[in-house]
C-alpha cells in the first residue's frame, strides 16, 4: 500500500491518544468545586488528536524519502552512543566520555577517522576549558576517584 508512513503515524497517534484518554479516566478529582475538573482538558487533547489522525488516515501525504538501512544503522548507532554518554557523564567525568562520544558522532557524519579523533579530543578539552574556567560550571574532568580536576 502506498503512503504507508503517514498511515502508520496516524495509527500510532490514535493508539497513544486512546491510551492517554484511558489513563486520564484514573485522575483523581479535587475537593474544590470545579465544573471542569482535571480530566476534561486531557480528554479534549486526546479527542482532537484522534480527529486529526483520522484526517491523515483518509488523506495521507506523499511518502517521505526515507534513507537506506545503512543510514538508519548509523543513526541508531549515534543514539546508542548518546545514551551511553548520558550514563557515563556522571561517573566518568567530562573529558573521557566527551572525547569518545564526540569522536564517534563526528565519524558518523563524515567517515574520516583522523579528523574524527582530532574533533573528539579538541572538543573535549576545548569545551571543558570553556565550561569549567570560562563559565565556572561545576564539571568534573575525570572520575572523582582520581582526585584531579
Amino acid at each position, binding site marked *: 500500500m502506498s503512503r504507508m508512513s503517514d498511515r502508520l503515524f496516524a495509527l500510532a497517534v490514535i493508539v497513544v491518544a486512546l491510551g492517554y484518554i484511558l489513563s486520564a479516566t484514573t485522575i483523581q478529582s*479535587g475537593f474544590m468545586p470545579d465544573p471542569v475538573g482535571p480530566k476534561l*482538558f486531557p480528554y479534549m487533547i486526546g479527542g482532537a488528536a484522534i480527529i486529526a489522525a483520522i484526517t491523515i488516515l483518509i488523506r495521507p501525504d506523499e511518502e517521505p524519502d526515507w534513507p537506506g538501512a545503512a543510514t538508519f544503522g548509523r543513526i541508531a548507532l549515534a543514539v546508542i552512543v548518546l545514551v551511553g554518554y548520558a550514563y557515563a*557523564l556522571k561517573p566518568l567525568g567530562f573529558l573521557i566520555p566527551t572525547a569518545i562520544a564526540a569522536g564517534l558522532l563526528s565519524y558518523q557524519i563524515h567517515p574520516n577517522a583522523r*579528523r574524527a579523533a582530532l574533533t573528539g579530543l579538541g572538543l573535549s578539552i576545548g569545551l571543558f576549558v570553556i565550561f569549567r574556567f570560562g563559565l565556572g560550571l561545576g564539571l568534573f574532568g575525570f572520575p572523582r576517584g582520581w582526585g584531579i580536576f
Partner: protein
Amino acid sequence: METLSLLADGFEIALTPGNLMLAMAGCVLGTIIGALPGLGPSNGVAILIPLAFSLGLDATAALVLMTAVYYGAMYGGRISSILLNIPGDEPALMTTLDGYPMARQGRAGDALVLSGVASFVGAFLATLGLMMLAPWLARIAFKFGPAEYFALYILAFSTLGGIASGNQAKALIATCIGLGIAMIGLDNATGMPRFTFGSMHMMDGIDFLVAIVGLFAVAEVFVFIESHGRESALGVKLGRIRIPWRDIRATFTTMLRATGIGFIAGILPGAGASLGSFLAYMGEKAVAKDKSRFGKGDPRGIAAPEAGNNAAAGGALVPMLTLGVPGSGTTAVLLALLMTLNITPGPTLFTDRPDVVWGLIASLLIANIVLLVLNVPLVKLFVKILMVPPSVLLPGVTMISFVGIYSLSGSSFDLLMMIGFGVMGYFFRKLDVPTVPIILGILLGNNMEDSLRRAMVISGGDWTYLFSSPIAIGLWIAAVLGFMAPMFLRGVLKRPQAITD
C-alpha cells in the same frame, strides 16, 4: 513623552558595563550561530538557555544576552544564504533566491553589505515599533479575562497550524502532543498527580528545556548523519568589501515596505520571521514594475526578505512580551527563557517590571548598532566561520546541549528524555510534522487549561461564557480564519523552493 523617559531609564540599565558587554558578546555569538548552517536562532538560543541559567545572571542581564543572540542570529543567517546558497536558518531561505545569484556575479561583498543594511533597517524600525505598540497592547491586555486568554491561545495554535505549516492535521497532532506533555505532573488546581505513572521523575512534569534542546538541537545531528554532512565549499570569491551606496539608495523604499510587512507578520501569533521574509519578498515582487531580474540577483530581492525577517523578529516580541503568547519558534524559546527566570510575560510585566521591559528594549537598540558594525565592516571575519565542517560543528552542538541540560538537573533521566525528543524530532521532520507547536503546547498547556477552568468557575459551567465578550469573539473569528485561510490560499501562497544548481 512617557515612553521617552521610560526609554531613558532603560538605557541607564542597558548601558551599565556588564550589560553592554553581554549585549556585545551576544551579538558576536548570535551572528556566528546564525551563519553556521544547521544552527539558527531557535536552536542556538535553546542550547544557550541552560548555560545562561547556570551562570547565575539576573533576569535583565540574561534577557539582554539572549535577545542579542536572537537578533544576531537573524542577521547572521544571511551570510551562508548568500555565499553558500544554504540558508543559515529558515527565515533566511528567501535571501538565497537573489543573494546567491548576486554573489555568483562577483558581487558577494555588495550582497552582504546590502543585506546587512537591510537587516539593520528592518530590525531597528521594528524595535521602535515594539516600543510604541507594546505598552499600548499591554493596556488592552489588562481587559483580558480567562475567556479571552483561552481564545487567544486557540488563535496562536490555529495560526501556527494554519499559516505556518503545510498540513493542518499534522500541526494539530503536534499541538496535542505538546499540550498532552504539559499535563504531566501535579495538577495546578487540585495538586493531584496526572500521567506520572508513579514515577518520581515525572512529578515535576517534563522540563520544556529538555524538549526544546532535544527537538531543535539533537534532532539536527541525525539530519546531518543522514545527509552525510555535505561539505560546504565556498563557491564564490569575496573581494574587498565596499559599500554599494547606489543599491542601498535604490532599495531604500523597498526596505521600508518590507519592514512594514515583516513587522505585521511578526505580530500575528504563530506566524513569525519565515512568513515575514516570504511575504516581504512576494510583496516586493508584486509591486515591482520590472520583475525580470528577480531570482537573478536583484538588489530588491535581497533587501526585501532581509528587512522583512528582521522586522518580523522584532514584531514577534510584541505578543510575547505583552500577552505571553509567542509569535514564532524562537520567541517560544525566549518565552521558555523568561519562564526559567521566573518572569511571567503579560500586561503586568510592563507595570511590575518596567526595568526588564525597557532595559530589554534599550539593549535591543544598542545591539542593532553593534550588529551593523559587526555585519558590514567586519563581515569577512564571520565568513571564515562557514569553513567549520559539520562533522566538527554538530558533535560540538550536541556536547554543549548535554552539558547545558546536565548542569540544570544533574540527572541522566533528563538527558535520556532529551535524546528521545531528538529521535522524535528527526522522524517528525521526515514526516513533515512541525515541531514548533509541540514546544508551544508544552509552554502554554498549563496556562491554557487554567484559563479554561477559571472561565468555567466564573460562569458556573456555562460554555457560552467563552464567547461572551467582543474581544473573545474577535479572537475566535481570527482563529477560525487563520486555520482555514491556507486551504483556500494554498495556490497563491506557494513557497518557492531554494534554487539548486
